[in-house]
């Protein structure tokens, strides 16, 4: 909101009611209420004796010189720092160097102090630690308050979040509360040599176009950063950072959302046309049992299983899983074709996949013509190794 009243801080003094030139403020239950006549002029903000009236309009034209340092917001899940946080540190280190400013990691959670050393050893100069029983993992409201309050106090030039589901629902709330810009799901970040603005590049139009975005007059500059793109720095054992505790002032309303339970690994079968990853099999899979191997691979990747017309006709998969001219057309991010020769009828249903991996024993199989990555080998030898390698890789973002 452009101008709003922090209910808990309002003393009910009514000064603002008189200060408002538009008569947009009235009292209800002893607290000031701003109605739609408000044009965000800010007269009430200055009149308020307790600082209960906030405005984000001021941030629209920030004095950019007052904002310093690059912040990365660390994310923990199930009590561990996520690898994407280390990638953010790696990326933030480069930006901080280019700006000749400090790289600060923001650690907010119930019990997160123990991760401060990790942050330091992966590149942070400063670690801000905010601990509170209300800062449970994945809760947007308390985290938004903690980070916003810290950013208001410290005035960072740049704040980066991971573009994980949590980061992508937290960062917009912080940006709205600060009244600053936010660029989603960036795949490249840099500093403009002349202006020192953050240059944020992201895919748009379903990946058909890349756009570079910047926020010349607004601070902090905020982005969510796609996991898996930036490189983490190797751990530098013994590297030290200033560890600074910050106060957290959560409010009762920050607990308006409660997580009842997390049912792990429960996934509904996704419509093939909406699947992000598809593991598909053809004649080379050879049997229903063969498809069990593909299902295992799909489970590790969070993928859907599909197949060719032959696989359906042989009864190895059901008809709703058929890809191709007489089946469905799919365009996942990743299509792994196992034992599929790649007849034109099949290719017409999957050539739109962004990345195609083909595993086939026949080096002349047409599928290799449209594949991005060609694995000319026996799927029954490669796929089990692939499953093992994916499992060994552990928790990645």
């Amino acid at each position, binding site marked *: 909101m452009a101008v709003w009243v922090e209910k808990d801080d309002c003393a009910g003094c009514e000064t603002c009611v008189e200060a408002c030139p538009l008569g947009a403020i009235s009292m209800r239950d002893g607290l000031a209420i701003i109605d739609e006549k408000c044009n965000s002029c800010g007269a009430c903000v200055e009149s308020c004796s307790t600082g209960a009236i906030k405005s984000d309009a001021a941030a629209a034209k920030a004095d950019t010189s007052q904002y310093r340092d690059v912040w990365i917001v660390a994310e923990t899940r199930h009590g561990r720092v996520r690898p994407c946080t280390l990638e953010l540190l790696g990326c933030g280190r480069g930006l901080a160097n280019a700006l000749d400013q400090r790289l600060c990691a923001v650690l907010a959670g119930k019990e997160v102090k123990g991760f401060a050393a990790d942050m330091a050893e992966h590149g942070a100069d400063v670690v801000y630690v905010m601990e509170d029983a209300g800062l449970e993992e994945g809760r947007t409201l308390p985290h938004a308050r903690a980070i916003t309050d810290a950013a208001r106090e410290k005035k960072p030039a740049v704040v980066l979040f991971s573009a994980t589901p949590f980061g992508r629902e937290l960062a917009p709330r912080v940006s709205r509360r600060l009244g*600053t810009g936010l660029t989603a799901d960036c795949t490249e970040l840099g500093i403009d040599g002349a202006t020192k603005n953050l240059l944020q590049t992201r895919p748009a139009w379903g990946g058909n176009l890349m756009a570079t975005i910047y926020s010349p007059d607004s601070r902090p500059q905020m982005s969510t950063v796609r996991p898996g793109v930036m490189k983490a720095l190797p751990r530098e054992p013994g590297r030290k950072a200033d560890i600074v505790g910050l106060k957290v002032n959560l409010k009762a309303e920050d607990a308006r959302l409660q997580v009842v339970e997390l049912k792990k690994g429960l996934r509904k079968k996704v419509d093939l046309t909406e699947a992000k990853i598809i593991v598909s099999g053809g004649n080379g899979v050879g049997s229903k049992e063969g498809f069990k191997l593909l299902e295992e691979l799909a489970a590790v990747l969070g993928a859907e299983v599909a197949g060719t017309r032959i696989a359906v006709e042989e009864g190895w998969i059901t008809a709703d899983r058929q890809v191709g001219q007489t089946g469905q057309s799919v365009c996942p991010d990743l299509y792994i074709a196992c034992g599929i020769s790649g007849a034109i009828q099949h290719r017409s249903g999957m050539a739109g996949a962004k990345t195609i991996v083909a595993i086939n024993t026949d080096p002349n199989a047409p599928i290799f013509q449209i594949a991005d990555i060609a*694995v000319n080998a026996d799927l029954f030898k490669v796929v089990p190794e692939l499953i093992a390698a994916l499992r060994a890789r552990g928790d990645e973002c």
Partner: protein
Amino acid sequence: MYRDARLGVAELDVIVLVKQVPNTAEVKIDPRTGTLMREGVESIINPDDLHALEAGLRLRESHGGRVTAVSMGPPQAMDALREALGMGADAAVLLTDRAFAGADTLATSYTLGKCIRKLGRFDLVVAGHQAIDGDTAQIGPQVAEYLDVPQVIRATRLEVRDGELHAERTHEDGVEAVRCALPALVTVTREANKPRYPYIPRLMAAFDPNAPIKTWGPKDIGADERLIGLKGSPTQVQKTFTPKLEKKVEKLSGQPAEMARALVGRLKERRLA
């Protein structure tokens, strides 16, 4: 929420955010200039928003109340709202004005938030998880923040019980069941439901000049001109370019285990594993 202590009735005021988008599946890039060829590309209701409308309509069907569709866009976005009425929305608001143009997500969330405040009481705002033209998924949380209500993002199931929103949402590692106070904002994914088709007589009626669609500009919602459209947008586009598209086949070699490890590396680079 309307409550009647004697009758125990609770009706829901639901606002659904709708965006009209070009069908990106049809958008082509001019190979010479590297720019988007938008001519002749049909405009559609953003796919996730159809699921948001369906979710809103189902809530109204089980609780009573009203569904109001809100869209910001050029005058032709009226078609999206007519379709929303055809599906069953009770009323609609089109926010259209040159001053709204060029808005980034911050300015858009301000504009939509102002409009929702102007509409008055609401129990739930429902939006699609993300739009296919921008893919930012920022509008939902930013509108929630503006309205100072909690949010449930990526809901696949939702119901209102005992004055609270109960929802399930997908996470990287499972399905999370959450409980949330009303009023609230929820964004839904395509797994949430199957959207109904517009009912043709209702769709026809939406073309009537007396159809319940309001057209509002900045003054109607009391918006500060400095906070809307291009002027209210802190982010600016510096340049756009087309990603390299040429396909180069990479052949992996070696023992199966080596190939598998190399493949995992490639998938990781492409953020696919």
